């Protein structure tokens, strides 16, 4: 489906892209590190929503047991992709947070601009 059209035909896509943009905006513009991590997670959630929406067709079933002809199944591959994506997102988040904790212990601030000033 053409994406510009899809954004209006299926709410999922619109929400997913909105989430992606909100996340991206937060990551790039906020100076607070925790907010950046939050933005990262929002962005990734948006992408996961988008992925899952691709695999889902209206009234489709979970592809677990063969239920005869004429039944539509959701695409299982995207779910697998999303699972892997979540694992990566979680590990990145955990890693970033651990570094932020260390940074906070060192300088007592979470603000990137403050850090910049501390260093120079």
């Amino acid at each position, binding site marked *: *489906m*053409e*994406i*510009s059209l899809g954004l209006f035909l299926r709410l999922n896509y619109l929400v997913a892209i909105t989430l*992606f943009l909100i*996340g*991206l905006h937060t*990551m*790039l513009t906020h100076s607070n*590190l925790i907010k*950046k*991590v939050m933005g*990262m997670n929002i*962005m*990734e959630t948006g*992408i996961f929503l*988008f*992925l899952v929406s*691709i695999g889902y067709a209206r009234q489709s079933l979970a592809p677990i047991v063969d239920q005869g002809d004429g039944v539509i199944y959701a695409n299982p*591959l*995207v779910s697998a*992709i999303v699972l*892997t*994506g979540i694992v*990566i997102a979680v*590990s*990145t988040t955990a*890693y*970033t947070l651990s*570094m*932020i904790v*260390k*940074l906070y212990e*060192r*300088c007592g601030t979470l603000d990137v601009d403050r*850090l910049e000033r501390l*260093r120079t």
Partner: protein
Amino acid sequence: MLKHLPVLLTVMPLAGAFLVPVFGRSGRGHRMALVTVAVTLLAAVTMLGITAGGEVLRYRVGDWPPPWGIELRVDALGALLASFFALVYLAVTIFAGRDIPGELNPASVHWYWSLLLLLLAGINGVVTAHDLFNLFVFTEVFSLAACGIISIRDRLDSLEAAIKYLILSAVAAGCILLGIALVYMVTGHLNLSYLAAELPMAARLYPKNVLAMVALLTTGFALKSALFPLHVWLPDAHSSAPSPSSALLSGLVVKVGIVALIRLFTTVFTGPVIAALPVPVFMIVMAVGGIIFGALFAMTQRDLKRMLAYSTVTQVGYIYLGFGLLNETALTGALLHIINHALLKSMLFMCAGLFIHRTGKRRIADMAGLARHMPLTMSCFTIGAMAMVGIPVTNGFVSKWHLVLGTLHGGQPLLAGVILLSSLLSSIYYFPVVVAGWFGHPASPPPPGPEGPPSMVWPIVALASLCLILGVWPHLPLRLLGDVARTLLGR
């Protein structure tokens, strides 16, 4: 066994990465890492022998056939890159054996070897992947590992640089994943060959999706490889990391993003797909920006490692320039420059590392008179500087030759002017260092003693000699890469 080589390239370092923390405490970790890297190198060279004739190794993970299962592919390009990357890795690992214990908290030294192997697994994974999602996964693996080897130094500037890198890298990951989602949406495939077959049709049906997808993937991988306006994370990250890490980051990690892009653009986004999109032009413009601004920023640096890091921005620009021109000569030059710069920049960072290890100083001004105490290091640094400028008999010259010839083939003499201008700028920031090193007078001489431990000096010398050898006999990689460029461009 031979059949499993493509997957072993990734699995061996991955296994090593998990075994080192378990068995590798108390100094054994370095030896384990060395053995793993050496075996990986052996595997890569074996595959180079097989694929040099044009054969492509295909491997189905778990024996599932391609559209559903994961496929790995090693062609001559992959094998050549894997071999050279593993070679650089070996040199850096040997070098790190003496450097790292002095730089890090003793409790975290064995973790460093583990991260090093994880990074290698990620790099090899990207080089061998023939599947878009795998490409993404391994990109994340190497990005996380790369952050690991920066932040492990446990100092404020390293931590800060690592966080900056990690966040921008997450942005890149988001872009790549969204791009993958879009591509899957319009084609239903992730395997590169199947994608390539489906995409022309999809591009006609959904041009906007394909446009968005190409833009997202390009942005994502360009961020990972520090293409010009997206390079902001690089100087901090590369200069604050421990020297062996800087060597790997500048030498290899940056290149992996480019390799991924080259794969995508030559196997998937070919012909009609790319013809409608201005991506090559965009790349050339950004590359020119990187070449000029990287050099200008490098000129203003006073910290040796920061200068080298900005020089990497310039060199990445060269590679993108050769790639964006999309003709055979230029692409050969770009591929060759990936290898040459990997050798050179890691060698230069190791020189800087040895200098810092020996004297504890890291400013360029402190290098005056260095040759009196560290003649071998200074000779290698000189070779590296000459190769960066592109003086004949060094390998840098060979790649520059192809790049300039490629710009003329593409009918763009102005771009040749850009390359030459930036060579001049490179000489303006490299040669004063060299001249001061040989003929300057040191303000305070370093403590007396030998140049450095042999295990730190010889890897540098080995890489420097390799740079010269590849400058004098460039035919082996050139012939291979010429073939590769021809096949990649489909001629």
